């Protein structure tokens, strides 16, 4: 086998596995309770550059070159507009390097669901569907 053929097969196998894995994990909210991200870590209104939602805040880290950010913006904006006490705040990740290092944001969109006190309760990467956002919000109510 030529090196080119070997490279072709390796690339197709690796990228297919990676793509399938991403398709399975994108847009899924996870409860935040890991050692890297201690539950209860807070984001303040100052850090956000916007007031916290009375009930919950949907934080979206976006970047300039990010197609799914637009989808996420539409979904989260719609949920916020139709759910009393819930706000949507979008942050330009490349302008907030300190913040993305602190929250270990590696790709966009990264989404955080904050409770009324600004504590991070759920986290997702990739564009979620409406049902996933509502399910995550439901556990934050109170």
């Amino acid at each position, binding site marked *: 086998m030529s090196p080119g053929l070997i490279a072709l097969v*390796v690339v197709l196998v690796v990228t297919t596995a990676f793509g399938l894995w991403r398709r399975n994990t994108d847009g899924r909210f996870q409860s935040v309770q890991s050692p890297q991200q201690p539950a209860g870590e807070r984001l303040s209104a100052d850090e956000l550059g916007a007031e916290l939602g009375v009930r919950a805040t949907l934080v979206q880290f976006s970047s300039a070159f990010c197609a799914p950010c637009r989808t996420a913006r539409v979904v989260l904006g719609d949920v916020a507009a139709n759910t009393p006490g819930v706000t949507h705040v979008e942050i330009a990740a490349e302008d907030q390097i300190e913040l993305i290092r602190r929250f270990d944001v590696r790709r966009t969109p990264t989404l955080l669901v904050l409770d009324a006190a600004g504590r991070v309760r759920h986290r997702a990467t990739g564009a979620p569907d409406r049902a996933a956002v509502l399910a995550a919000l439901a556990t934050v109510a109170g």
Partner: protein
Amino acid sequence: MSTTTNSVSATRSGSLIDPRGPRFGAAITTVVLAVVLLTSSSWLLAVQAIVFGLGAIVGLSAQPYGVVYRRLVRPRLAPPRELEESAPPRFAQGVGLAFAVAGLAGYLGGVSTLGTIAVALALGAAFLNAAFNFCLGCEMYLLGRRLFSRQ
């Protein structure tokens, strides 16, 4: 309520496009780069580099595969369900150009391993885009900013 902070709105200045155009282009790119890998053809890689360059430097409207899509494919399809910003796929064309140039340097400079690796990486990115609508270069952008920023 929806709030946009900082410069997000400034980054949304690109025009909106049919997202199936760049994916169609990525599928053709995948096939072209697969042929390049199998034949080590410098001239075919040079053609692909020009295609990338037109898309990145002039814009997506000048990208030849995009032109084929709009003239021949799009008229046969239903209108797109949603539109997409043009900045991410244009950025991806620039990343593709960089890898194509590196590949050409490898093939023409007699370092065929460099050529193979550069073309293989570009092929992987094009395939991810075509098959999964995933923009590898776009994700590298944020990681790069995070790694190299001193803020």
